[in-house]
């Protein structure tokens, strides 16, 4: 548990403090907010991919479900945002429960099936026949509860909690059993690990994280369309950021987001016409030359990173 305290001091505390204080120094708060969103999503991917080896290519499904769960709770039930946030997260967890049979699939099949599941949820939400419930393709407007300061603050709290979860997973027995499942589920079962339960738990935690930040995203942006919160780029970015830094670590996804999302924004502002091209090539280079991510590389160089 000592390592847990150290990891918290090195990663969780400074990052949370930075997220909370930077708006006072830097005026593009939305950029900071998006950093928080991707930090949380990358850690959410880390929980499920890093610790169990299942790649959730449709991770955005939970994000979008959280956003819509939150919005519909506000619109139809007139709930306070913080309560609605709980409902959005609950909706994401419920979706995750529905999708647990996907764990019967392995490798790329799981990834593709989860991708398809996210698309399916999007198609349902944006169907014009459900206009009365979901506003169909016409989009959500939450101007009545718009509150950028408070929602930013809540996002910072979610970031802190998410980072705490990864620190816990990295240093706890539960995290150890998850990593054993990832390495060899059969051996893990023989070691007495309840594979199904541990994996499901990780999946639900991961969905909960995405659902929470999805809800806050909806609250913060307040006007959006189904394609806004179900955009495949959320999944893809979160996965690429997590992989770049190195999964099953605390700092890997953080480094990935800060470095890659930083570059993304720098390129986006300086050389937009080559934005997508550079990004695509960067992803390819990452897979070909640095498949394990940055953190294992640093560790090999003798730099001890959490």
């Amino acid at each position, binding site marked *: 548990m000592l390592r847990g305290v150290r990891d918290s001091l090195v990663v969780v505390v400074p990052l949370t403090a930075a997220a909370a204080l930077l708006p006072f120094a830097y005026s593009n708060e939305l950029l900071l907010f998006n950093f928080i969103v991707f930090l949380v999503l990358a850690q959410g991917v880390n929980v499920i991919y890093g610790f169990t080896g299942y790649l959730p290519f449709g991770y955005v499904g939970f994000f979008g479900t959280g956003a819509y769960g939150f919005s519909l709770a506000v619109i139809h039930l007139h709930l306070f945002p913080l309560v609605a946030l709980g409902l959005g997260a609950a909706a994401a967890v419920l979706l995750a429960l529905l999708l647990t049979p996907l764990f019967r699939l392995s490798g790329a099949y799981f990834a593709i099936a989860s991708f398809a599941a996210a698309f399916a949820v999007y198609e349902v939400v944006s169907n014009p026949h459900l206009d009365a419930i979901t506003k169909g393709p016409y989009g959500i407007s939450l101007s009545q509860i718009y509150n950028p300061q408070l929602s930013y603050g809540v996002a910072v709290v979610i970031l802190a909690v998410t980072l705490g979860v990864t620190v816990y997973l990295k240093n706890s027995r539960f995290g*150890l*059993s998850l990593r*054993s499942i990832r390495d060899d589920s059969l051996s893990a079962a*023989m*070691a*007495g*690990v309840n594979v199904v339960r541990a994996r499901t738990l990780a999946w639900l935690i991961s969905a909960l994280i995405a659902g929470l930040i999805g809800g806050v995203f909806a609250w913060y942006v307040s006007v959006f369309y189904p394609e806004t919160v179900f955009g495949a780029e959320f999944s893809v970015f979160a996965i690429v950021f997590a992989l770049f830094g190195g999964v*099953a670590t605390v700092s890997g996804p953080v480094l990935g987001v800060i470095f890659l999302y930083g570059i993304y924004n720098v390129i986006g502002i300086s050389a937009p016409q080559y934005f997508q091209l550079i990004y695509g090539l960067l992803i390819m280079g990452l897979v070909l030359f640095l498949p394990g991510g940055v953190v294992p590389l640093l560790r090999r160089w003798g730099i001890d990173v959490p």
Partner: protein
Amino acid sequence: MSPEKEAPLLAVEALEKRFSGFRALDGVSFEVRPGEILGLVGPNGSGKTTCINVITGLYRPDGGKVTFEGHPINGLPSHRLARLGVNRTFQVPRPFPSLTVRENVAVAAYHGRRAGGAEIETLLLSLELDAYADKPAADLNSAQQKMLDLARALATGPRLLCVDELAAGLSRTELERVALRLRAFAGSGIALLVVEHLMGFIGEVTDRVVVLNAGKIIFEGTLAEAIRDRRVVEVFLGTEHAV
């Protein structure tokens, strides 16, 4: 069969397992008592490993019954069996490659029958893995990985340990040490079910053998009796190195 004084720890009755028509196990029955080492021998494909897989929950049997301490355990998932005290090693060792050697054993110690990890270090020391405790398991050689497999199984505190071809590929001296260890486990009250091709090893460690052929038991008794049995000799002739 002579009546036993002690109640059996494991009883397998009329076990059946089919793979798309092929009968891998066809009415296999035997018993193992605490502290006993039972050898399971037979030519390739006779159903030895399948038998272990069914006992340890990897496969569901298609018929028959497995009882452990008088309670039926067939169909229970592996982790439940591990917590009851049924464990195994794998023919090809299956450590957790990205975990350190100590973590490999720790997982089992945390989740097995015994709570707490007090014995992890003792176990590593006794299986000569202590020097590698902080290395990832992927760095071990195959003999060391076998020992790690064994260490992981032992860390769960098993009462029945199925050992699947532990000896294959080990050197003469390693073999002797392993045999000594297995006897020591039995001495501490653990029942062992040993699948092995090396008859010398079998002869050294087992009290009794069950000979399988094509999913059926063709002989049960001591190894010395077995090699005098006509059917056993027929099955093995030319295919296996006899003693």
